[in-house]
């Protein structure tokens, strides 16, 4: 297998744009899904962590359930929603993503990452000293400035929340396989390519693709750790 791996690495390094396409598509799909999840999930997490309102307990329970939801079930859910005979797909709405497109994969990944980002953000803001809120208000902070101050104080945890979302989607295979279809040149990403190569018996190539995926995850985490390190030093 080690020969196969070395051969695969050579193959990858000297290879075609096809691999580059797969890597770029993986980054695009997961990057957009993570951006959307963060834009929605961080405010939702802050709201759940800081505000008290009717239905909050139910919302928290839903977030926790979402955090533990198997991605493949989410893929199935999105599949059933978007398929031509599905609840949404049958409506023929022009803005709705179609199955077996990167947009459908992004939708599935948003549903996977959103509860992770919201849930960990909620935990992070709840970990901030409760006295901070009153003291920042005493300095003259408006409601928004107070929320922002708490988020800033919880930034290490909020960054970790985004990373949890990233980890959840970049390594995910079941949902993107279902809604994307692993179509070469269109919806094939690193995880689905690994599954395909493994099924074909190309273990070396599958492993080499796995190394690339690991490298991407490591690079992302390294950048985040660097940012967190700066925060701790302040």
């Amino acid at each position: 297998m080690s020969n196969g791996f070395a051969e695969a690495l050579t193959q990858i390094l000297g290879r075609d744009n096809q691999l580059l396409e797969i890597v770029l598509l993986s980054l695009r799909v997961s990057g957009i899904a993570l951006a959307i999840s963060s834009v929605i999930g961080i405010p939702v997490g802050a709201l759940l962590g800081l505000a008290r309102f009717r239905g909050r307990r139910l919302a928290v329970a839903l977030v926790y359930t979402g955090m533990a939801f198997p991605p493949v079930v989410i893929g199935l859910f999105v599949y059933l929603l978007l398929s031509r005979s599905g609840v949404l797909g049958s409506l023929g709405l022009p803005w709705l993503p179609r199955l077996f497109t990167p947009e459908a994969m992004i939708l599935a990944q948003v549903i996977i990452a959103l509860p992770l980002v919201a849930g960990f953000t909620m935990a992070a803001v709840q970990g901030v000293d409760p006295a901070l809120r009153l003291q920042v208000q005493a300095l003259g902070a408006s409601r928004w400035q107070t929320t922002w101050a708490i988020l800033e104080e919880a930034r290490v945890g909020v960054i970790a929340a985004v990373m949890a979302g990233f980890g959840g989607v970049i390594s995910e295979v079941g949902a993107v396989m279902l809604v994307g279809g692993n179509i070469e040149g269109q919806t094939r990403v690193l995880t689905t390519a690994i599954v395909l190569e493994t099924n074909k018996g190309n273990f070396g190539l599958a492993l080499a693709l796995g190394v690339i995926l690991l490298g991407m995850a490591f690079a992302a985490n390294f950048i985040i750790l660097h940012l967190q390190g700066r925060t701790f030093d302040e």
Partner: protein
Amino acid sequence: MTALYSLRQVTVRYAARPVLAVEELDILRGEILAVVGPSGAGKSTLLRLLNFLQPPTTGEVRFGDALYSASRDATLAMRRRVTTVFQRPVLLRRTVEVNVAYGPRLRGVDVGRADIDAALAEVGLTELAQQPARTLSGGEAQRVALARAMVLRPDALLLDEPTANLDPYNVGLIEQIVARLNRQHGTTIVLVTHNLHQARRLAHRALLLLEGRAVEVADTRTFFESPADPRTGAFVRGEMVY
């Protein structure tokens, strides 16, 4: 001296429980008013009310010409004319300097480098400007909290047990800073303290709160030496059992 705060028939209730009931209280511009009383007397609630962080349940709170109302914008504008230094300051996970500059940033006030430096010099922390605030000792953190309040040049500075749990050296330093701030800038100061000696040293007038009610307010000498209310006498002699 004219009144900066005027409280009339003010009550504050948490749920159904009354925690403050002040019939009449004026806090004069430029004075240091010490607020004393046993734990649970409503001292901190009074400070939250004076910082416009806690609306009265009933009654009227006037701040200069402005009336404390339910309007969020008006409340924020009033809140931005005062500030509080708390017993346990919570500083941002940033440098000392950033903490001091934080209040003006919130208020949209452009303070220069010189103002930040002056505030830090005032509390004797110039050398620690670039140090992470979370690494400071309790006394240093409290001085940073004072600096971040002073740089705002508030009309009223509210101090909630600012020297509790501090060593005598830091207590002395903070008392000097407070007295200087009042003397040099004419800042009105409301000092909540359990330390009666401190109240006597610093304040022009003193107020005794008992079970949320203002028992007596008088100039410091009268308050401590010949109070009108026997409960004040018992309290300052340490004879009050509560």
